[in-house]
């Protein structure tokens, strides 16, 4: 087991050495994931609310499709967006491939079904009287939905946390659309994948521990926000 303990030790050393490259990768991971989760929330939360509240034909089918999207491998999302962003693709002229923007786009696509699904589950679990009560007090459908979000805010927060975790820990999209370019699109996860492919297991694992520490700090911070 000294392989695992070696990694732990290396992680501690890594954290306190303030290695420039590691810092940069942490930063890239953090800001792409943050932007992606914000954009995903803008789309995913309303979708989840809508599927949770409205009753219409085909609703169950849509939910099943949403569930299916959660099984989408990240590399497939990468492939599809690659087709969009590549030189020959419809958005090729903007030269977005292998930039953080392409990564963020992919991560957003990845996070939307997760956020939507989680919010849907929360809406299903929420007290059925919330919307009615708000409406009888004079709220429009939109205002009532906002009130519902407030009532299930812990669930929505959990949805965003789940999505954030998924995005910051994923590697397929970041690799495929970001390109793992040193100093620019290298994230913690692509760095880990790289070290692993080099056979530098201890270093890869210690980077993984650093990533988990970063995620822990973010979660502690969100947790603090929640408790206020």
């Amino acid at each position: 087991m000294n392989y695992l303990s070696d990694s732990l030790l290396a992680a501690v050393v890594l954290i306190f050495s303030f290695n420039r490259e590691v810092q940069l990768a942490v930063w890239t991971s953090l800001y792409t994931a943050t932007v992606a989760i914000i954009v995903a929330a803008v789309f995913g939360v309303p979708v989840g609310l809508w599927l949770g509240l409205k009753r219409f034909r085909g609703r169950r089918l849509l939910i099943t499709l949403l569930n299916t999207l959660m099984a989408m491998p990240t590399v497939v999302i990468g492939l599809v967006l690659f087709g969009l962003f590549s030189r020959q693709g419809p958005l090729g002229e903007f030269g977005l491939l292998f930039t953080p923007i392409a990564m963020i786009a992919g991560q957003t696509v990845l996070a939307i079904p997760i956020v939507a699904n989680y919010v849907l589950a929360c809406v299903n679990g929420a007290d059925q009287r919330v919307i009615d009560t708000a409406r009888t007090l004079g709220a429009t459908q939109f205002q009532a939905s906002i009130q519902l979000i407030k009532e299930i805010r812990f669930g929505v927060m959990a949805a965003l946390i789940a999505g954030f975790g998924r995005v910051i820990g994923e590697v397929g999209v970041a690799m495929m659309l970001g390109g793992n370019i040193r100093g620019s699109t290298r994230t913690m996860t692509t760095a880990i994948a790289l070290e692993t492919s080099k056979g530098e297991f201890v270093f890869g694992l210690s980077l993984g521990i650093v990533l988990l520490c970063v995620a822990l700090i973010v979660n502690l911070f969100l947790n603090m926000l929640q408790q206020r």
Partner: protein
Amino acid sequence: MEPVVSLKHLLFTRGSFRLSIESLELVPKKVYALTGANGAGKSTLLRIMALLINPQRGVVQFPGITTGDADHLRRQVTYVEQSPYLFQGTVSDNLAFGLKLRGVARQEQIRRISLTLSIVGLEGFEQRKAKELSCGETQRVALARALVFKPDLLLLDEPTANIDVNSRPAFEGLLARLPKYGVTVVFSTHDRFQAQRIGAELLCIRDGMLQAQDTLCLF
């Protein structure tokens, strides 16, 4: 004077339950008491009037209230459920909900909230957590939450069922006084003498139909 609400050729069914009302017009600034056995359809009728559920057939109109759209209408018609839902947060947050929607200024909100709470016998309850109230207290808060913005039509589902016996006269007095402030009240009750005490007009549901208003109501 135009009726506050008028129902015509109304039919509502759900499973084996069936509610049908040929015609009903409620006059402004009056108190109506709705009675009927358990499962007769009192709550259903109130929910239809509160625009929460749609009847399969027939029309529900509010000629005396607004010519605006449904969203305008909803600001004037309110409904307090039989087991009301209070929003998370404090009692004050709950009462402020309707006031905020209507753009009432912060200071005025505070004034009205404390006034209304004292009316329902909950002085000083502003900062209590809404989810940590007893049943009767919850019912009082829900009533206050509706009263605070003075609706034109107030629909109450068994509002005094869980109110303690010493406070009941105060509540009945309150219901009786509301028309003076321009509020039309419809409340359901299982207490056959309550309607009399308040001087409310009886609406009695039986076999899925409204009984003629002059027949003796057995509930």
